[in-house]
């Protein structure tokens, strides 16, 4: 592996009864925004705290810009950290909060104030310099926290679920704002989140963690289209699962033969994204996939949910429940439950994994 700007080697955090982070290896290039994505307890926050120096590593090394920082105290690491709970200094004004890091770096007061005001302007909080954190809304507080972390121009910027305490609309706004500021300044950043939409839409790369281990590091497209493990496939995006027995590229699922890219053997799990499956009811014309090889199974509609932009069907296909989506075009009547339908998808859209456990 090419050594990155941030280089994490065999990083492990062991508590008395459990391993929180297990042999994590990661290389992050300069200027990249990388998400640490995973369910709660997967070790993403612990990893971040180790990078920040707030939690000591049991073993392994962390180096930033070629310098080993594993044993350094947080205040010697030159990092910025944005907390989920904002963690602003309640006894200081917005301006003093943002100036704090510069003061600690012994930047002359006049210059510190000028830079702090610039940072406050960057997060669009001009005019609120003299307010106390308690006088600001949650979104504004998180902007102050962002300005406070940015103003010191850290070599690495860390975000610990910074948007989790904000409501949905504000979250979208902050997401694109953080992304554009990060890109403009070219700061190498790590963004911890349990929200896959956040990870996929904002970040250059996503590291999926599960049970303290790195499942996959890749671009959002890699994760979605070419998940390395069954966990990644089911955690990132929604999937339909089918279990079967493979023999080469032919897989038998409940007596029906399906095909999959690549050869495998033994018990396997097939996964297909719901929106890649095409549902055809009796009397409708079969979709045309051209010369592409396709898979096809029959089933019966169990339920229909209307969600405005899509119609969501639940289909019983030989005992396995599958989800399929259709975009609404207005005026159509949903295919009613009980109808026999056919599901078709491209062989290329079939993901195969060795059966778990």
């Amino acid at each position, binding site marked *: 592996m090419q050594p990155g700007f941030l280089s994490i080697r065999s990083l492990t955090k062991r508590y008395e009864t459990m391993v929180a982070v297990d042999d994590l290896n990661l290389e992050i290039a300069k200027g990249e925004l990388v998400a640490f994505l995973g369910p709660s307890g997967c070790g993403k926050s612990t990893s971040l705290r180790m990078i*920040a*120096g*707030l939690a000591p590593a049991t073993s392994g090394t962390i180096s930033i810009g070629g310098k080993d920082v594993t044993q350094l*105290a*947080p*205040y010697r*690491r*030159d*990092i*910025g*950290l944005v*907390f989920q*709970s904002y*963690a*602003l*200094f*309640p*006894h200081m004004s917005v301006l003093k909060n943002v100036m*704090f*890091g510069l003061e*600690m*770096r012994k930047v002359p007061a006049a210059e510190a104030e000028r830079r702090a005001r610039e940072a406050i302007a960057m997060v669009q909080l001009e005019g609120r310099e003299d307010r106390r954190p308690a006088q600001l809304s949650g979104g504004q507080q998180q902007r102050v*926290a962002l300005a*406070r*972390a940015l103003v*010191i121009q850290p070599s690495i910027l860390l975000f610990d679920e910074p948007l989790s305490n904000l409501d949905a609309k504000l979250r979208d706004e902050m997401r694109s704002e953080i992304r554009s500021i990060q890109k403009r300044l070219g700061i190498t950043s790590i963004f911890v989140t349990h929200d896959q939409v956040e990870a996929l839409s904002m970040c250059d790369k996503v590291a999926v963690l599960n049970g303290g281990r790195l499942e996959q590091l890749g671009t959002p497209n890699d994760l979605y289209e070419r998940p390395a493990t069954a966990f990644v496939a089911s955690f990132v995006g929604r999937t339909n699962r089918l279990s079967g027995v493979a023999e080469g590229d032919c897989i038998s699922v409940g007596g029906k033969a399906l095909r999959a890219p690549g050869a495998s053997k033994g018990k396997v799990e097939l996964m297909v994204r719901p929106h890649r499956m095409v549902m055809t009811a009796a009397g409708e014309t079969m979709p045309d996939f051209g010369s592409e090889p396709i898979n096809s199974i029959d089933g019966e509609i169990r339920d229909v949910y209307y969600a405005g932009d899509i119609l969501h069907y639940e289909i019983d296909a030989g005992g396995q429940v599958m989800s399929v989506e259709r975009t609404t075009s207005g005026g159509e009547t949903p295919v009613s439950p009980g109808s026999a339908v056919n599901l078709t998808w491209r062989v290329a859209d079939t993901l195969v994994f060795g059966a778990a456990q």
Partner: protein
Amino acid sequence: MTAATMITAPGSRTSSIVFLATLLLGPIIAVNGLAFIMPVLNLLMLSFRESLGGGGLGDAYTLDNWSSTLVDGFYIELIVQSILTSLMITILTLVASYPIALYLHRAQGRWRTILLVLVISPLLTSAVVRTYGWIAILADDGLINNTLKALGADAMRLLFNKVGVVIGLTEILMPYMILALLAGFGRLDPRVEEAAETLGASPWKVFWRIIVPLTMPGVALGCLLSFVLAVSSFITPKLLGGGRVFLLATEIYDQAIVTLNWPLAATLSMIILVIFGAALVLYSRLLRAVL
């Protein structure tokens, strides 16, 4: 809803709240009035009466007690010494209690409960008993001096002087200080300390720039409580001072019980009340400044 009900509804609600408030506050107003306000007013009246010696009171009202107290160098010295000694005790109590309170604030689970009980447990014995304990430790042939002598050092005079009073009162006031500090530590947040650390603050800077300002409400409350208790305590200064340390509270005791000059004792009591009032004003000013 008609206009009439719209107008009367809030009105009747207000009057019922006033009634409820009177009902609920009534008992405390009665108790405070009878047991606190009346005696204090009585004391104030007494301070303007003439002392006839042997405990007798003259019928006429006079300003003599006040004028002699506020002009007499002995009493001015007494007031200043009382305030300074109490301030010193307060500061020592704060310095000794702060690390304990901070540790307790961060302790968790059963360990925290055990420590808290240990901190409070001195309050289960009376200050008199604890003062005699200090006599045993500080006396000329007490624990400390015997140890010093055994080590070949010179013995120190620790009892029947101000040193003994300060040591004893500091220890006796520590539980109150620790409890007050803990009550005022609510704004401490480990995340905020971590934020300061990641911004480049050394542990020393984190302590002075973050922890100390955020714990100021507790510090102010603890200091107010300790100061008031230090100024008004007389058993410990009397026993550990051995009659050689003169403070306002011990002087009041002497005037009231030994000399039987009640008007003078009342005057000195009123002066202590004024000092408390000043401390309270200072406390609220400080609190407003830090919040």
